[in-house]
């Protein structure tokens, strides 16, 4: 299978690219924001960072680029789309995922590790995790305070679209474990079909031994498993 990583100006695309290319050892190509053809890709990653300087609203300018129109078609046809941090914000601005991001309730940029409870391990991105498993990922965002109206929230919950929730080390979903004020401690959601995932925490920044945490790698390996490709020789796992 083939990955693509979109290189928006101001985004940290290189770290996602590195994880796919070097750590899981899979074909991956950079995609430019002006791209109007997305042939041959199976999974497209919208990386974290500050695309277009977060001007207007985080992700708003990136959401209006030509490549995003292509990605919407790609997702419609069942292609896998992963939005991390700013990539999640872009997916919300495009409407590929419901809801919106507000500034963190604390008004502070939060940059630290968080505990997450895996609420749905049946998605293409989370099948290497166990349902209800508590994992640790880093966050780094100032605008990750997820909002959706009560009707939309009920639908998310009912459809199992809440994929990750902020929790404490014991897996309890409590206000004290919520770094940004998100409704119901939501850290990541998918669309109804499950082929589009957006999350604020950064799996690509905890995928290598040297970083002291490899729990994020399983998200990328989940994609390979879902695609029917087994872990290749030399690929590091944390199991």
């Amino acid at each position, binding site marked *: 299978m083939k990955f693509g990583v979109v290189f928006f100006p101001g985004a940290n695309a290189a770290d996602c690219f590195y994880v796919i290319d070097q750590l899981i050892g899979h074909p991956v190509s950079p995609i430019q924001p002006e791209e109007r053809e997305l042939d041959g890709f199976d999974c497209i990653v919208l990386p974290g960072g500050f695309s277009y300087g977060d001007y207007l609203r985080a992700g*708003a300018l990136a959401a*209006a680029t030509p490549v995003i129109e292509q990605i919407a078609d790609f997702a419609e046809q069942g292609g896998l789309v992963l939005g991390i941090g700013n990539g999640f914000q872009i997916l919300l601005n495009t409407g590929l995922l419901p809801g*919106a991001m*507000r500034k*963190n309730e*604390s*008004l502070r940029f939060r940059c630290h590790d968080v505990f997450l409870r895996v609420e749905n391990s049946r998605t293409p991105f989370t099948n290497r995790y166990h349902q209800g498993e508590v994992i640790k990922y880093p966050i780094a965002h100032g605008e990750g305070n997820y*909002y*959706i109206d009560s009707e939309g929230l009920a639908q998310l919950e009912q459809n199992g679209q809440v994929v990750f929730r902020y929790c404490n080390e014991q897996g309890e979903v409590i206000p004290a474990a919520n770094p940004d004020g998100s409704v119901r401690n939501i850290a990541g959601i998918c669309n109804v079909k499950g082929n589009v995932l957006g999350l604020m925490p950064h799996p690509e920044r905890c995928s290598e031994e040297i970083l002291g945490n490899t729990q994020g790698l399983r998200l990328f390996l989940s994609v390979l498993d879902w695609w029917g490709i087994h872990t290749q020789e030399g690929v590091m796992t944390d199991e």
Partner: protein
Amino acid sequence: MFEAAVYVTLKKGILDPEGKAIKNSLKSQGYDQVEEVTTGKYFLLKIKERDRTAAEEELRQICEKFLVNMVLEDYSFELREVDR
């Protein structure tokens, strides 16, 4: 040519932590009379259009598709004809 002043504010019921922080700071500066502060955005657009209705329609589209996050924000605008 039209000039449009667009004001974007948070919908009622959406928390405005920035406004709250500003209000608290005003209080600590002695401005106890200030009951509430809400924050928003302001855009000034010049639209090359002769017809007011057409300009208005275009502006609405620009707001709802791009300038405003309709999940969280409301908007209003003032449109006036200018020479250039």
